[in-house]
């Protein structure tokens, strides 16, 4: 439907160009801008193929800003060759923009699992914008994966600070720091960080799960039960939550509840498998 409208507009533009070059130029740029906006909107709505169509029209109309969202669309569809071509074009079009480097970093990290190359891309994004709190956060996460946790902590803390300043709901640095502090048994800091992550994004199962895990470590079993139940309610496939909940309930003396959750864990394992959840 959208593409039909777009083609319709194209004909109008062509006719206008024959009649009046100035107004046609205005219409042309408006149309390119609309194609880009429609493409980006479709991408955010999860209509990836529709987005690709619109963004390719925007590019055909000369809007170089379409390269980056198009690269994102290929990333979403796991199209490795097309992503690499498109992100290179996005960087060439706007070499000072940190965003293309950030997106490539995400790709290297998530798809190729190449943590070192990903870290370099996040660093290149930060060279272009030192306040890019998402690049800071992901660089911190990469460093944690590379076992450079002491270097990672200040980056994650700075990401938290910048995200707070910009009133963003970006919860990932809190989550990552909470995991780190939990590993070190710095439970007060872990509780504070995961509490903020939950406040920012209570509907994220991983936030609720980590909240429960930290509470369990801090021997706050009632809190752990509430959080782990919340994680299960949000994501019934979050099997680690069932397992931990059965342990917490068992420790609280609720043997029936513990057995019930353990049985659910065993049953659901066959349905969902033991894949990682978020």
């Amino acid at each position, binding site marked *: 439907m959208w593409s039909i409208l777009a083609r319709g507009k194209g004909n109008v533009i062509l006719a206008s160009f024959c009649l009046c070059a100035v107004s046609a130029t205005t219409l042309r740029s408006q149309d390119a801008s609309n194609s880009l906006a429609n493409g980006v909107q479709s991408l955010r709505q999860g209509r990836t193929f529709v987005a690709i169509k619109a963004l390719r029209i925007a590019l055909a109309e000369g809007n170089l800003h379409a390269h980056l969202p198009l690269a994102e669309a290929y990333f979403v569809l796991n199209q490795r060759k097309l992503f690499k071509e498109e992100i290179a074009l996005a960087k060439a079009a706007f070499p000072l923009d940190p965003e293309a480097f950030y997106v490539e970093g995400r790709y290297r990290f*998530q*798809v190729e699992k190449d943590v070192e190359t990903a870290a370099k891309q996040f660093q290149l994004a930060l060279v272009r914008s030192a306040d890019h709190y998402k690049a800071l956060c992901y660089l911190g996460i990469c460093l944690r994966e590379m076992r450079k946790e002491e270097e990672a902590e200040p980056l994650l803390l700075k990401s938290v600070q910048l995200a707070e300043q910009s009133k963003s709901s970006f919860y990932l640095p809190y989550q990552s720091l909470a995991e780190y502090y939990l590993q070190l048994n710095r439970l007060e800091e872990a509780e504070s960080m995961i509490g903020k992550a939950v406040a920012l994004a209570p509907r994220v199962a*991983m936030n609720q799960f980590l909240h429960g895990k930290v509470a369990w470590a801090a021997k706050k079993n009632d809190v752990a039960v509430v959080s782990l139940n919340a994680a299960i309610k949000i994501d019934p496939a979050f099997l680690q939550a069932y397992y931990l909940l059965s342990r917490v309930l068992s420790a609280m003396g609720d043997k029936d509840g513990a057995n019930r959750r353990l049985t659910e864990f065993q049953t659901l394992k066959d349905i969902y498998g033991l894949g990682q959840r978020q």
Partner: protein
Amino acid sequence: MAWANVNSGLLGIVALLCADMAFAQTHAPPSNSTSPQAKSREELDAFGAIMEAGNPVRTVETAQQFLNAYPNSEFIVYAALAGADSSCDLGKLSQCAGLARQALQANPNNIDALLLSARLIVAPGIENPPKHRMEAKTFAATALDLLKRKTIPTASEAGVWLRTRNSFEAAGKYVLGSVEFLDGNLDSARVLLDQAVALDPRGEYLLRLAMLCAAKGDSGAQAMAARAIAAGPEWVASFARELLRPEKRVTNDQP
């Protein structure tokens, strides 16, 4: 309704394709690093046209265009399946069989292709001698075995995964139940078909259950046939209407 049912299998394609958490706030790996890869933008656009077709007729058209234009594509199995599902929905069972065969040739271990091929072998109105029934049984058993080893992709929504999984499991049970029915083992057929309908009350499965009830002289046959008619698609409803006619008895022949 039928469109939504038939395309439940396509959810699997989405799960396979998507590095689904790509822009969510997470650092988990993508769902599948072996997703099919398009060799060109045009190839991906052509595949996108199938996914965005919006109705069965258009889906079949775009799928066939894709299969003709990109015979060596890594998307062949998904394009063929999309076309096959829609052909089935439209009651074009021989077209559906051709496309399902193409999908199965492209990937003999594709669960959706195995189940669809098996369903077509045992479909009412299709001649299915014992050799073919055995093949259907093997396809279904293989698919159910492969299904057991599947794990939910990291960012897939649990409900969507469960619906897709149930739809596959139901198809497997339906095929196994139908083979039992065709072999004359009505009691074991009943168990399997009841399980299939409980997992996914698709018209095709309800019709088979109605046929089984009729064969056993069970009073539930009419109610089951009425449910099959309501569930559709039209080719299923047509068989079910025949079943409701007292002078006719549908076995496995064309109505």
